[in-house]
């Protein structure tokens, strides 16, 4: 067992875990934040995306110990005191989610993409979301939402 500490959504957390514990299992099972989802076992679907030190990462593809000391933001930490982040608002306004399972990872990826590419266009969004699978929306409304969210994030 190893004690792994990090900051999740602004809160200092620590847990004793097996050294081979994945970051996503640390978040879901040890910290109890179940908004981050697991949709595959080959790093393909992106449902598990979280922000780690300012970058969107697939939390099924790194060990918890690799995130020791990191600043992690999960979907639970994206809204501000109950107020939607502009990207969450854009997803809501554009019906960019149906079953909601891929949504947490999709929103995290979208925020990262828009933050790093404020003037992104449709082709850029489609390329940028290549690592996130959605089976419900056909991506049409997700793309609309990310473009709208990117604009809103520019303030």
């Amino acid at each position: 067992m190893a004690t792994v500490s990090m900051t999740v959504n602004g809160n200092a957390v620590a847990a004793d875990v097996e050294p081979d514990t994945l970051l996503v299992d640390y978040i879901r099972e040890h910290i109890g934040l179940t908004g981050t989802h697991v949709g595959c076992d080959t790093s393909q679907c992106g449902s598990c995306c979280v922000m780690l030190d300012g970058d969107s990462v697939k939390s099924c593809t790194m060990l918890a110990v690799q995130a020791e000391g990191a600043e992690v933001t999960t979907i639970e930490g994206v809204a501000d005191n109950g107020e939607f982040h502009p990207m969450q608002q854009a997803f809501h306004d554009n019906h960019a989610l149906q079953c909601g399972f891929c949504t947490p990872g999709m929103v995290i990826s979208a925020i990262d993409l828009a933050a790093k590419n404020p003037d992104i266009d449709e082709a850029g969004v489609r390329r940028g979301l290549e690592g996130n699978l959605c089976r419900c929306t056909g991506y049409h409304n997700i793309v609309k939402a990310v473009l709208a969210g990117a604009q809103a994030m520019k303030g």
Partner: protein
Amino acid sequence: MTEHGIGVSVKRKEDRRFLTGNGNYTDDINRPGQTYAYFLRSQVAHAEINGVDTSAAEKADGVVAVFTGADLAADEVGGLPCGWGLTFQNGDPMVEPAHPALAQGKVRHVGDAIAVVVAETKKQAKAAAQLIEADLNGLPAVVDMKKAIEGGTLVHDEAAENTCYDWAIGEKADVDAAFDGADHVTSIDIVNNRLIPNAIEPRVALAEYEAASGDYTLYTTTQNPHVIRLLMGAFVLQIPEHKLKIVAPDVGGGFGSKIFHYAEEAVLTWASAKVGRPIKWTAERSESFMTDAHGRDHVTHAELALDKEGTFLGLRVQTLANMGSYLSTFAPAVPTYLHATLLAGVYTTPLIYANIRAVFTNTVPVDAYRGAGRPEATYLLERIVSKAAREMGIDQVEIRRKNFIPSDAFPYQTPVALQYDSGDYEATLSAALEAADVDGFAGRREAAARDGKLRGLGYSTYIEACGVAPSAVAGALGARAGLYESAVVRVHPTGSVTVFTGTHSHGQSHETTFAQLVSEQLGVDFEAVDVVHGDTSKIQFGMGTYGSRSLAVGGEAILRAANKIVDKGRKIAAHILEASEADIEFADGSYTVKGTDKAMAFGEVALAAYVPHNYPHETLEPGLEESAFYDPLNFTFPGGCHVCEVDVDPDTGVVDVVNFTAVDDVGRVINPMIVEGQVHGGVTQGIGQALLENAVYDENGQLLSGSYMDYTMPRADDVPSYHVSTEETLCAHNSLGVKGVGEVGAIGSTPAVINAVVDALAEKGVTDVPLPASPQNVWRAIQEAGA
């Protein structure tokens, strides 16, 4: 129309919890004392089980128990039942082999469960499973359906020629005569590719037994909790309904694959009582590939007879339909009543004969996947119609128009059992031609040619039968359950409302659409209406969500319950307002005495029902809650036109969908935003089938496309933005006029894409491309045509 009423794109109630990580999916639920299950699965497609030695696994760290098929048999646990019975042409019942929840005697597909380990942690369960020694005597596997019926290894000893049933519809002699008199016959061979549904949430089950009460609870990722309760309770485990609770909380997509009763549900529920602790199982994605029921997988030869003008005279269809290794819940109905009965399509073809032979193979069971049979029928029809037009030199639009069922011909009886109630195929076609700017296509084709691309345009004019289903009809056709839907509308004392529906939402947005419906009907605020689903201890009954039935069947049940509320409220209002019931009018949430200013708000009536101080006690019970069961008189028949434009790179075979237009008639639209979203998703799955997705087995029955690295899911950069709109004709037999939208996108789109690819390649001499039109398949088609 009110701000949140019928026809308004109201934003979804569901979104806040999903967008903030507060969804409650099955894997998010944990119970005190919970253990974890891991299933040891067969790595070979076909073998005799000589023995399973679990002794080492039982001693491993953290192991609570290990069970095999022998343990289930010792407890007389039944096999998984099939919910639909069919017959051979001579009336003999279909061959219905046992489907043990853990393999007994033989394993029959890669992924067939041999044993389950229950342990303190997931990791311990998985590690211990590796210590189980399964002594398997390998047998030859049969994967190809043609080989299976021509003397291949028997998957089940009782199924001669691996045939489950050999079924037919239509008068063959009459159809043959039509072919004899035809001016032209077009024939086509189609392999409708096997697909893997791949809801992004893997299946999960969590079972718990309370010894003190004898109550079982199963949390599971299902589209139809009451159906699971019935199938598992009555047929597998003999647990009566009142002792078995099924909870399907938030479910992360289904697309059909979560309709069926799966082995893991039964094994966990049974084992939870054996070990006296809750047990959770969460599928790894590779298990989803190997155990979720697959879709499609037809091999078809079809012929269309035409006169010299291009009028259809007859259609003859021969289909082999893969059942996989066991019969999944609805599997036998898919290639027959959801496929062969759709072969008239939107056309007046007077004579149709279809012969469907269902075949067992050593592959994962095949069952309903978004569209279920109707995509296969539509693909067959729209490909053969396009091919006939090309062979006869008739315009693609013209041949469709010439054979359309005219809009004044409804109700229209097809030669294959169905009676369509309404539709206007010319309306959706002409709207699609305009929206897709078909007039400008020639110019766009020239521009693409300058870039070295071959541009093609493809059409699909389709119909489907959904709103599943009239119980009497389904029963006559072999369904072993009723297919009505139920609703309870509970008005609370202060006028807010809870709606209990037997349908289940796993992306369909019922919490919003149904609230709009009730808000409009009762005149109460949208925010004052909540919708509850997915728990057999809360919901009176229900048949769940599949076959685009939730609104057309479930919505109608809700409407009827709401109307009973309005009627009871009228009696209460009449008493309090001292007027005759006939003089009370209800509109916009208010009861008024006709011709006066005497009125009571709906909320006041609700309060009076629960605080009945001034109340007609002699004739009326207190309270304001009503239920309704609704069994439809007919299926509903959405239809429409999809137009696809592609660019093909002749050097690489890469197909790029550059424009996609869908004009669908789904009946009355309650929430356009949600309807469009359903079409977007369905179209993408249809494009996935056309260009990307393919479940591939090798000859030994190994699933080669068993992960997201091998099975090509549509990604954001594989598809364009779509042009989606609706044209309404109302369903004639439900009061909302709704038809259903869940499946139209997946049904209409695939042939439009392939017709566009064939159109692009026609100048190369290509007349057909196989599904999926992957770069390799397209490139090969070009080379073979040019050879």
